[in-house]
């Protein structure tokens, strides 16, 4: 049983009330160690309360509106570095650590997590794991999935379980870290995680070519992708009525210089070249366009299909939205991955029905369509995750095994799990 002490302990660090999608929680607790997180969860499970874990608060709008929230569980007191061995290139860190702070520590040793998720510096490690977000660097470096080597999770059963470890290769039992990744807390709350980290590239540059039409941007993008130039990221984007092709290059100084020169010559169109810091900043701003801005009525969707059909998908979205009077002020496509993230404007007459209509259209065009952000009232009753995945009943069993009382985030995950 969770001790009264831990409950009191958590209450001490009580902050204020909080809300997700407009649903207000009466209480916020911020436990200071993994066992206390488990105690809070067990307590809530026993009372039939619903808990919403919150980290940096950068992706709270992701998912279906919560069925209910009795308690917000802040992970911000679970910060610190648990273990960092620069010479082993491994890091163990509390779930509440901010991504930006982690990168700064790694940076002191010339290392990094090669990730650039929306939400950026303010997102916590736990939040990034729960939402499994990625950014354009996925093109060359993969995602958290490729870096996560160990995890500790607090469960509503009152226990804390560990899996994996601090080695870069490990098949000791099932691959639990990957199961928890992207599960939005519904199998337990991540309290710490271990990563394989990588050396920071010595130099970087970005080539941005701008075109009038999507077709040209995509065809050059596809040729770059099929070519031999080693790119860190490759995106095609619609920004301010122009189609951009952006290529990020990372590596040794000379290589970056040579490759950037060749890419620039190849692309054609209007070329802008950014080096070093300004290259990094260009991408930070690029990714931030995929973040909802507080208080506005922006709808952000992500669609996925076959990588080779990315151009068709992007054009299809623009055309289809036009026919239902939805504006697409900006769009970001990843030709290596087959995804398109689009910002949509449903206009003054936006509504639940309109959003449902948009989702239907997108599901007709793409294999996957997720509404990443939308005004809460428009999301009511919709499954923002899109299509129900195959094997959904196995997922239901998982939820039942790990969180039988649906204590954490009831209703928010795929299929209203």
């Amino acid at each position, binding site marked *: 049983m969770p001790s009264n002490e831990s409950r009191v302990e958590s209450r001490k660090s009580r902050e204020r009330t909080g809300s997700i999608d407009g649903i207000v929680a009466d209480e916020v607790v911020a436990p200071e160690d993994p066992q206390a997180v488990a105690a809070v969860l067990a307590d809530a499970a026993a009372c039939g309360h619903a808990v919403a874990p919150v980290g940096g608060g950068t992706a709270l709008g992701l998912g279906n509106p919560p069925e209910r929230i009795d308690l917000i569980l802040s992970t911000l007191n679970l910060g610190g570095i648990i273990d960092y061995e620069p010479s082993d290139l491994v890091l163990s860190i509390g779930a509440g650590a901010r991504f930006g702070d982690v990168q700064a520590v790694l940076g002191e040793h010339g290392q990094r997590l090669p990730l650039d998720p929306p939400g950026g510096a303010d997102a916590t490690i736990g939040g990034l794991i729960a939402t499994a977000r990625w950014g354009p660097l996925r093109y060359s470096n993969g995602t958290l999935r490729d870096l996560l080597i160990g995890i500790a999770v607090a469960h509503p059963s009152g226990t804390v379980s560990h899996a994996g470890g601090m080695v870069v290769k490990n098949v000791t039992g099932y691959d639990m870290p990957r199961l928890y990744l992207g599960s939005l807390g519904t199998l337990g709350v991540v309290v710490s995680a271990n990563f394989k980290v990588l050396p920071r590239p010595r130099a970087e540059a970005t080539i941005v070519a701008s075109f009038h039409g999507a077709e040209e941007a995509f065809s050059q993008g596809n040729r770059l992708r099929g070519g031999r130039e080693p790119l860190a990221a490759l995106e095609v984007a619609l920004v301010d009525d122009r189609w951009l092709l952006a290529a990020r290059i990372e590596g040794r100084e000379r290589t970056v210089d040579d490759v950037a020169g060749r890419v620039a010559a190849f692309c054609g169109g209007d070329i802008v070249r950014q080096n070093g810091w300004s290259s990094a900043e260009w991408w930070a701003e690029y990714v931030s366009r995929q973040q909802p801005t507080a208080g506005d009525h922006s709808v952000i969707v992500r669609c996925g299909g076959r*990588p080779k059909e990315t151009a068709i998908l992007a054009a299809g979205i623009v055309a289809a939205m036009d026919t239902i009077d939805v504006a697409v002020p900006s769009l970001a496509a990843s030709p290596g991955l087959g995804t398109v993230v689009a910002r949509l404007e449903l206009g003054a007459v936006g509504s639940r029905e309109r959003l449902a209509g948009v989702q239907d259209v997108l599901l007709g065009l793409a294999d996957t369509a997720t509404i990443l952000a939308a005004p809460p009232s428009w999301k009511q009753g919709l499954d923002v995750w899109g299509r129900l995945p195959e094997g959904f009943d196995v997922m239901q069993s998982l939820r039942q095994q790990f969180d039988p009382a649906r204590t954490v985030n009831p209703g928010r995950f795929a299929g209203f799990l």
Partner: protein
Amino acid sequence: MDTRVDRYSLVTSLENIVGKDAVFTRAADLLVYEYDGSVDGAVETAMPAAVALPTTAQQVADIVLLARRANLPVVARGAGTGLSGGAVPQQGGIIIGLTRMNRILEIDRDDRTALVEPGVINLELSEATIPHRFFFAPDPSSQKACTIGGNVAENSGGPHCLKYGVTSNHILGLEVVLPDGRIVWTGGRAAGISGYDLTGAMVGSEGMLGIVTKALVRLTPMPEATLVLLAPFADIDSASHATTRIISAGIVPAALEMMDNLTIQAVEPAYHAGYPMDAGAVLLIEIDGIADDVRGTGEEIATICAEAGATEVRSATSQAERDLLWKGRKMALGAMGRLAPNYYLHDTVVPRSKLPATLRRVDEISRDFDLPIANVFHAGDGNLHPLMLFDRRIAGSTERVLEASKEIITYCVEVGGALSGEHGIGTEKSGYMTMVYTADDLAAMAGLKNSFDPAGMFNPDKIFPKGYMCGEVRALRMQAMAQKLGIHAL
């Protein structure tokens, strides 16, 4: 066996599903299925009731449904090269051999994927994709024999996983037959599929959650340039220090392998790869990428090796030279027969900075137990493969080998390592699981197992310590959990 399905009707039912030529039930035919690649003694053998070799996912599903009715366990099997007893049918039952499902269904150059059946041999997949200038990155040393299904189940690695990642990093989706006989896809070509990452959970699950009937794998473009370096050292200690320094300098080679003197003694006379016979250890380092980078990185590595005491650094750029250097490494296990009739290949991982100390400890153990131990392994990952040489015919030798392994495992765990880096747990190491995991850790793994296979029908007695998954223990655990939750009717 359930009395509702007697042996005779089991055989006829299987024959009805897969055909007469694809069912084996005679003791002589079953003998090979009692084993996999593991060492006798480290893994118990067990005989299946029958072996069936289906050719379609539907046949696999029908066999599973039949087994369910007959209350028989089901064990999937690929090439049987596993080294932890994974494919050995601990409780008998039906073995589903997937070797006849061996078609490459599609190679998509634009999407960089291949869709394959589980019985496709690892090397054959790369050979089929190389003309398109792609390869399948996971390259276990057994790649000429092992299957993609086996690779998925064990989350296999290989020399090039240092840069490219293990099997899990290369699987995009799986078609799986579940214990209730349904055929489902996990994952797929598109990013952003909703729900839990069932593909991630399936990879490395040792055939205990589902049977893979198709895999959608990622293909990796062939690098523009490749360089292989051979660096001999006077002793293991300086070679392992060189390894640690290369990694901590932030260099990620495509592969970084070590072979010690005993290995060289076995390999060099057989394959003439060019390893100096008097070296205490050699490092075999591959770097790939674009030509300029490869050259620059090669020079840095050569400098580090020289500083760490390499007696020379030889580099091979032509395909033929590179192949020769690699041949010694790839054939190393085969050459061990020159040194002793039997060997036990061990697989553990330690943090890379702990390599020098760990190898010293392995050497000590070798002397304490009067047991020659060769080291040929993925040094860059910290993934050790101490290879113990012995003669099974000598009484007590197998026991000594097992004792020595226990010492090695214990040390590796003490310095923050793991039980296995790529060979899996199976039955070989299930008894050691409590050394690294608490009851709560194992309970979470059991939660995953129960979500897929509540009756425990697929590959029973693997991974979990003996008796852990049996009804009694499970009931106790449920009770404890119910108490914690304040629920009484669980």
